[in-house]
């Protein structure tokens, strides 16, 4: 019964909060924009959208070309013949499925762990004031600012001593403590989010006799869904795309992830070209052979899982960012 009351209070408070900052009020309508203004608006949008999509189109177009198309000046965007052999080559060269599995482990697990740990810590920073609070907050900002290269050598030695090399620990354990890849930023996102929630929620729960931990896990944590989605996507994607830490802590080819193998593949194709073993050679017209098409196909395959994920979550993601208030107060 009591918990029902709490839930009702929460719903009410949230609903009233939402009304106040109800988004998407069509300001334009009230202002009565002119047609010229709209034409300008759409022109700018299409122009900018083109710039944003351009490298993506480039990736797709090049990856579908044969090597002869790359050197053919008459071929700009549309390949002469549709050719998927680059993808076949890249799929095999990347050793796709096993490496996909490694990528998933080194990005999905830290991302999920970071959601839990950073929410927990961010809540502490948002709702409690204690001696040393400002100092810790300063350390949090400090951690965000230190370039990873500065501390990479001691970390490397530390992890070697712990026998963490070629395991998944270097990616997961720091995340447990709210660190790891951009952990400080994620703590700050949760901090901002929890600060924005009304305090009555916890008061109601505490009056009902819930302890601090229970209040957090059963009431505040579930409310943080928008912040969670933002942190999850950022963390997942950044871990997925990161080669800095994996290249140091993972040295056995078996344990490589997709991004690492993309680098390897890139190196291999360049080596093949230098040795002339690639079956493509330069000619007298000054054409320098490249395997850009294969590397582009590999790149596309590597980011494909993230693209698909984004396609499905994009809508919620954008809304969440607006609601999570990652922008500060």
């Amino acid at each position: 019964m009591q918990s029902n009351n709490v839930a009702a209070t929460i719903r009410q408070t949230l609903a009233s909060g939402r009304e106040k900052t109800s988004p998407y009020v069509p300001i334009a309508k009230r202002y009565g924009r002119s047609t010229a203004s709209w034409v300008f608006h759409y022109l700018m949008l299409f122009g900018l959208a083109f710039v944003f999509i351009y490298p993506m189109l480039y990736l797709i177009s090049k990856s579908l070309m044969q090597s002869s198309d790359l050197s053919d000046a008459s071929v700009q965007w549309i390949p002469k013949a549709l050719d998927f052999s680059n993808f076949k080559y890249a799929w095999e060269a990347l050793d796709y499925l096993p490496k996909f599995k490694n990528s998933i482990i080194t990005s999905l697990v830290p991302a999920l762990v970071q959601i839990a740990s950073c929410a927990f810590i961010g809540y502490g920073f948002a709702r409690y004031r204690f001696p040393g609070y400002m100092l810790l907050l300063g350390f949090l900002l400090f951690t965000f600012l230190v370039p990873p290269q500065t501390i990479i050598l001691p970390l490397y030695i530390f992890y070697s001593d712990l026998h963490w090399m070629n395991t998944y620990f270097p990616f997961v354990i720091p995340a447990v403590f709210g660190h790891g890849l951009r952990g400080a930023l994620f703590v700050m996102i949760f901090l901002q989010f929890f600060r924005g929630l009304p305090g009555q929620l916890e008061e109601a729960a505490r009056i009902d006799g819930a302890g601090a931990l229970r209040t957090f896990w059963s009431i505040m944590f579930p409310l943080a869904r928008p912040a969670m989605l933002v942190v999850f996507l950022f963390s997942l994607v950044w871990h997925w795309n990161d080669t800095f830490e994996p290249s140091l802590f993972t040295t056995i080819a078996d344990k490589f992830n997709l991004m690492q193998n993309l680098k390897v593949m890139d190196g291999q194709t360049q080596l093949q070209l230098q040795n002339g073993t690639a079956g493509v050679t330069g000619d007298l017209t000054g054409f320098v052979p490249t395997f850009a098409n294969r590397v582009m196909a590999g790149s596309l395959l590597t980011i494909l899982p993230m693209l698909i994920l984004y396609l499905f979550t994009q809508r919620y993601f954008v809304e969440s960012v607006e609601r999570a208030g990652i922008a500060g107060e």
Partner: protein
Amino acid sequence: MKKGMSMRTRHYLEGYMFTLPWVIGFLAFMAVPLARSLYFSLNKLEIKTAGLQAHYIGLENFRKAFTVDVEFTPKLIGTVSGLIFNVPLILIFAMFTALLLNRSFKGRMIFRGIFFLPVIIASGTVLTKLREDGAANLPIFQQYDLASTLSTIMPMELARPLLGILESLSLSMWDSGVQILIFLAGLQSISTHLYEAAKVDGATPWEIFWKVTFPMITPMILVNTLFSIVNSFTKAGNPIMDYIMDVLFKDNDFGYGAALGWIYFLVSFVIIGIVLYLFRKSLRERG
């Protein structure tokens, strides 16, 4: 909880409980490594059978970076000057895009999807590959031969960095995905009452932007500036980053690599200090 414990003590303890994991992590993965790398930077390290052997050599490594090493200083200057050009560019572009997206119009969701695409892809190896392959050069610039046009109307010293920016324009735009998000979230949080009040008082859209929108999103400008700086200091393909990694793991010159890391860190800290100083007024107003 014990009965005798005062409300205040209990509040403190709970606060420590929530932040304790982070403090442990901070010690293990930040403070201790940072101190060790400072220690390394003041020593000459050699790998012996008994492990790492350190000889104290004072600031020798730091001196070497600026006097003996011919590669480091130009790379550092290049990175910092790139930052000074790129960050304002990213900020202006992100703000402009966020303003465009903040209006309600048909196809808003699709456009948003496109503009946030870079957040998903624009990091790491793929981007580096695209840059190497020349995908950053928009065809517009080649067609109109912008390079020669620019060099005729302005001195070469000015034209060259400008051309550098234009060449990587689309890629620096791709770097601004997160910043667009932050600006947009900020714009969404501005109450419509403010706009209505301004409109009633007869303000033009131009005035509304400078008197309402801009002051309201100043905090977001600070957040974005900091984020852009940190991002460009740590993103893949940063020449300094690659250089430090080479010194550390190819040359195995640990002491020197640690010193370079510290110089890099101090430089970024000074730059961030300058930014905070410039924003001190708006910080003070927020309290």
